[in-house]
């Protein structure tokens, strides 16, 4: 395999693929390929060891039992954790934000250990947060508003080492005020849509982190039109 191919690990799509988050890996791959950057998706299924050599790791959302099984597998095969120490880029969606933290507590009050990759704890909220979300990216991380669809019961509290990804304007996010988390090159969010087709600026930020080079904007009229529609619908 050529050294210059960017490898996108799609982590446990058989367990954490409930909400179309596979789309995040496709968007990363295509946005690189279309710009002449070699990229490929490497699916890592349950039961397979997790390599530590990939450049980007994409983790999606899943149902409760699947999430428990996923975290068990990722702790037994800590390739993702090793990759983080080597500066890999990681995107964790929904279940991702919960399992990457120190711990997550379910509605049944049982606390499960997380992977300890970000300084956060999650617990079950009273009601399920469902609907369109708009949030302003924190610290000018990227241009334009963050748009997505949330559907989760978890609420997440960030510790001092983690920063929020964005400040909520419409919707719930982590707690009604902030959404997601950034720690080093790990980005977490509650947002589906999936999040990267909705937010190409965030996709390109992850690509720039992984490749170490600035990328030129891509003109995709459908993406521009869809974002405008979603922002209008949520406002």
């Amino acid at each position, binding site marked *: 395999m050529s050294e210059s191919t960017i490898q996108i690990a799609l982590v446990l799509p058989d367990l954490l693929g409930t909400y179309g988050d596979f789309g995040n890996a496709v968007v990363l791959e295509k946005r690189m390929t279309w710009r002449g950057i070699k990229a490929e998706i490497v699916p890592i299924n349950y039961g397979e060891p997790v390599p530590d050599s990939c450049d980007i790791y994409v983790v999606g959302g899943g149902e409760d039992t699947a999430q428990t099984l996923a975290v068990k597998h990722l702790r037994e095969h800590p390739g993702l954790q090793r990759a983080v120490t080597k500066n890999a880029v990681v995107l964790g969606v929904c279940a991702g934000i919960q399992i990457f933290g120190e711990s997550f507590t379910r509605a049944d009050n049982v606390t499960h250990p997380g992977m300890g990759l970000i300084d956060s704890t999650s617990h079950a909220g009273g009601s399920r947060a469902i609907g369109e979300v708009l949030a302003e990216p924190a610290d000018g991380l990227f241009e334009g508003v963050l748009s997505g669809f949330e559907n989760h019961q978890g609420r997440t509290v960030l510790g001092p080492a983690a920063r929020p990804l964005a400040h909520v304007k419409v919707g719930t996010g982590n707690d009604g005020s902030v959404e997601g988390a950034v720690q080093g090159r790990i980005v977490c969010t509650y947002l589906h*849509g999936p999040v990267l087709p909705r937010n190409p600026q965030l996709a390109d930020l992850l690509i720039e982190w992984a490749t170490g080079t600035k990328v030129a904007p891509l003109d995709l009229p459908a993406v521009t039109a869809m974002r405008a529609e979603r922002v209008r619908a949520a406002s």
Partner: protein
Amino acid sequence: MNDSPARLPLRTAAAVKLGNLSSSLSQKMGLGAGGMIGGRVALKLDPQALNRLTQGRKVAVVTGTNGKTTSTMMLARAVGALGEVATNHSGANMPDGHVTALSKQPDAPYAVLECDEGYFPAVAGASNPAVAVILNLSRDQLDRVGEVRTIERSLRDTVTKLQNCTIIANCDDVMVTSAAWNASKVIWVATGTGWHHDSASCPRCGNPIRWQGEHWHCTGCDLARPHPNWITADESMITPEHQKLELRLTLPGKFNQANAVMASAAAHAMGVRTEDAVARLRGVSNVSGRYRTIQRNGRSARLLLSKNPAGWSETLTVVKEANHPAVLVINAQEADGRDLSWLWDVPFERLQGRTVIASGERATDLAVRLTYAEVQHTIVPDPLKAIDQMPQGAVEVIANYTAFRDLNARAAADE
């Protein structure tokens, strides 16, 4: 007349009368098809209406994620061999729809009810069914219906408690098998279809499910594919008596063969001879407008309904045979589910190289998905205009729930 339904108590009779009146008013005033409003009124006046209206009738309830309407229609046709059948035809599959259908045919000794998965516990509880059919369970409208495992759990709790009910269950679907596993009487049907993406882990113990060919088992508990009583084979089926019967359906696709075998097994449990059941359900050709072809300005457009990733995946297989242009119509209203993330679970890549138009209220979301699938397309939000813009000849139109409903109504009005 000992086969006829029990006499209704006065309150139910009055509720039914007023309900029927509302249905016909709704139809006459052009407000709707009258499939639900009558039942809604009757249920308000008598909350026990569903229980009372099913007393004395032999009832079958059909549920699952995909194929409910088609299977219900097939089963109702088959049970028609025994006598008059009350059934909810137009996808009005919640209690108000059931009450409406039962009120319109108060003397029918049989009822075949299509039931939304979420309402199955209430409907099965109220109607004391002789047969319950569970077709399949996969992700669908996660923001409205909830996660698959929650649905599986509620079906499991319900069918385990049902007395004197035969469960007809798809043993190629892990979720359905788990739901029916503890029921007192189960007939297992190998349908040869199944969406495996929601069952990598066991719904009962959370351990991985292992597949070997058509067989599967849980690596942590005793859940495993049961030995099927009925088997779907290529264009035919094998009965529990090892008799091979040709299906020769009018409807296309493998999933309709699965629906037909499930319906045949259910009809058998209702008391219909299998040959009679198959001969009757074979004639089903147009299920509330689905699969029908409309003619517009030199275009023959076949209308197909698909609501979720498993359904779309099957439909893309059906339309693959001919390389006809395709109009894809997507809405995201309440009844469709507001979240369109599922578009990314559909293998639209299979449409590469074909003439495609993205249509519907959420055409731009679909256009983004098609862009990343590298499927050339144009955007025409109005599906009838989209059909008109296609080259003359055959066109496939695939639409999700409200998009299909609205398109079908407009097309019918034009005809």
